[in-house]
């Protein structure tokens, strides 16, 4: 771990004198103040809300675990959560595999590397709203996609008003917009693998798939864990892109969990209920993260 080592180093050298010990606190203060106000306090408030019935206007009413028991009986909540999980189940492996594949291609000695990297990275710089709009335009009734379908002799589809295709559209747009980011992370990880390993493997006459399975994948594990963790957390937070692409429809067919919480809190004015849902989502995300962490540690030694 880097933290204790650096702490030791700092202890050895520092000597600004005792009268100045308040100075570091002053330097940290602005950040700390904002953190506390906009992250720590909201977390505490959210937790308190989750045990109350509250519409934002009238006084709060303590209901104990009432919100939680109600959520457990709320089918809409669970189906939104299930949809999110299914979306994550497809998007996470797809992004991981594709971005790794592209990263492997782009660390080869080929021409126009920089150009290709830029092309794949570029969509990650576009806001989710515009990504959503872009694909909404392409998948629209008069969009290119339907034109291609008719060219191939198929009936035009109402992509965004059909439950299945709306979800497919969301998945395509997500992969398109996120691939470049994880490609860059994988490239960093791939280039950190010492070349000696590959040299040795080549001398031993190992085949390419074998080299990939026995050298690249194991040594790439820390990077892969990071990517899986980040994509998973991202998948569970998906909202702005969906909002722009499908608006959560048709019906509620692409309403994932964050949008559902947002609507419960702001449109239905059930702040207590929405806070309880947020607590559940937070616990879920933390559990995933902890699990990932544990799995990756267990495998590294």
């Amino acid at each position, binding site marked *: 771990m880097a933290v204790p080592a650096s702490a030791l180093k700092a202890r050895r050298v520092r000597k*600004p004198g005792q009268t100045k010990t308040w100075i570091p606190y002053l330097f940290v203060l602005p*950040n700390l103040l904002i953190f506390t106000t*906009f992250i720590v306090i*909201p977390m505490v408030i959210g937790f308190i809300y989750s045990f109350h019935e509250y519409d934002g206007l009238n006084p709060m009413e303590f209901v104990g675990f009432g919100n939680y028991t109600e959520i457990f009986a709320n089918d809409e909540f669970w189906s939104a959560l299930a949809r999110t999980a299914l979306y994550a189940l497809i998007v996470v492996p797809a992004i991981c595999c594709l971005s790794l594949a592209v990263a492997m291609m782009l660390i080869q000695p080929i021409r126009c590397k920089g150009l290709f990297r830029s092309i794949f990275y*570029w969509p990650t*710089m576009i*806001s989710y709203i515009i990504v959503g709009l872009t694909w909404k335009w392409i998948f629209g009734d008069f969009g290119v996609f339907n034109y291609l379908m008719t060219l191939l002799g198929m009936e035009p589809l109402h992509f965004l008003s059909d439950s299945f295709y709306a979800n497919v559209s969301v998945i395509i747009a997500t992969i398109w917009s996120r691939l470049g980011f994880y490609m860059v992370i994988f490239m960093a990880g791939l280039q950190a693998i010492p070349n000696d390993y590959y040299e040795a493997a080549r001398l031993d006459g190992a085949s390419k798939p074998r080299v990939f399975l026995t050298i690249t994948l194991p040594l790439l594990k820390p990077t892969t864990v990071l990517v899986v963790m980040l994509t998973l957390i991202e998948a569970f937070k998906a909202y702005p892109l969906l909002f722009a692409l499908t608006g959560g429809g048709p019906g509620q067919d692409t309403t994932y969990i964050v949008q559902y919480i947002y609507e419960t809190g702001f449109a239905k004015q059930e*702040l207590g209920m929405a806070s309880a849902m947020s607590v559940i989502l937070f616990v879920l995300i933390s559990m995933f993260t902890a699990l990932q962490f544990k799995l990756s540690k267990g495998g590294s030694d």
Partner: protein
Amino acid sequence: MELKASARTALYLLLFAMAALWLFPVLWIVLSSFKTNNDLYSFPPRFWPEPFTFEHFTAAFEKGNFGRYFINSAIVTVSSTILLLLINSMAGFALAKYQFTGATVLLVGFVSTLMVPLEVIMIPIFKVLSVLGLFNTLLALIIPPAATPTGVFLLRQYLLTVPEELLEAARMDGASEWRIYSRIILPICKPILAVLAIFSFMWRWDDFLWPLIGISDPSLYTIQLALSNFIGEYNVDWGSLLAMSVITMIPVLVVFILFQRQFVSGMVTSGMK
């Protein structure tokens, strides 16, 4: 690693095909924004605008109040980025170069907030903004996101490599701690501050959630909020929407072109490790 000629050809074909897929959506949007309304909805769709028209762009500025949103976004992006660079470098400096009670707790505290998705605390954040009187002000979009843990962490790690002797020498000369920060630390941090500035620019310019929570008055909308609000309505004015999207992408494109090396190659060789 050497590649056989056949493998190389296959690799190029695959890369070109994928690159085309990745380029096409943006290209389609950009070209469509120059089409007349007739062309826009014609089926089969035409790839090239015929004739070329700027009517959607002028309409977006005249009718759509787009200039206002653009200015709001610019104010938020620039001020939040400046604030971020200032307070993150201050905190990073303190955490890297001072030994004080609670330093480790603070560092771990900052970094662990990375784990808290904004999405799960948006309702209480809304409440905090209202209580502080920040709701419906641009300050609500400028101040809170400026204290990003990523920035603090990156700067701390960067500053750990700065030799203590440099600071000690300045102290011998009687420099105050603030002077050390502003005259020695800030110039040293330039490269990492540049990277952070780029990130902050992107984050704030593309942000949707903070504006969604913090703003309800249409005259304070940022571009992203304005765009999303357009879609919510029944009659989508695709012409203006496409034009607005295209203009909105330009600043990010400019930043990307200017700092391309730091972005892609830089992240590959150093930044993400």
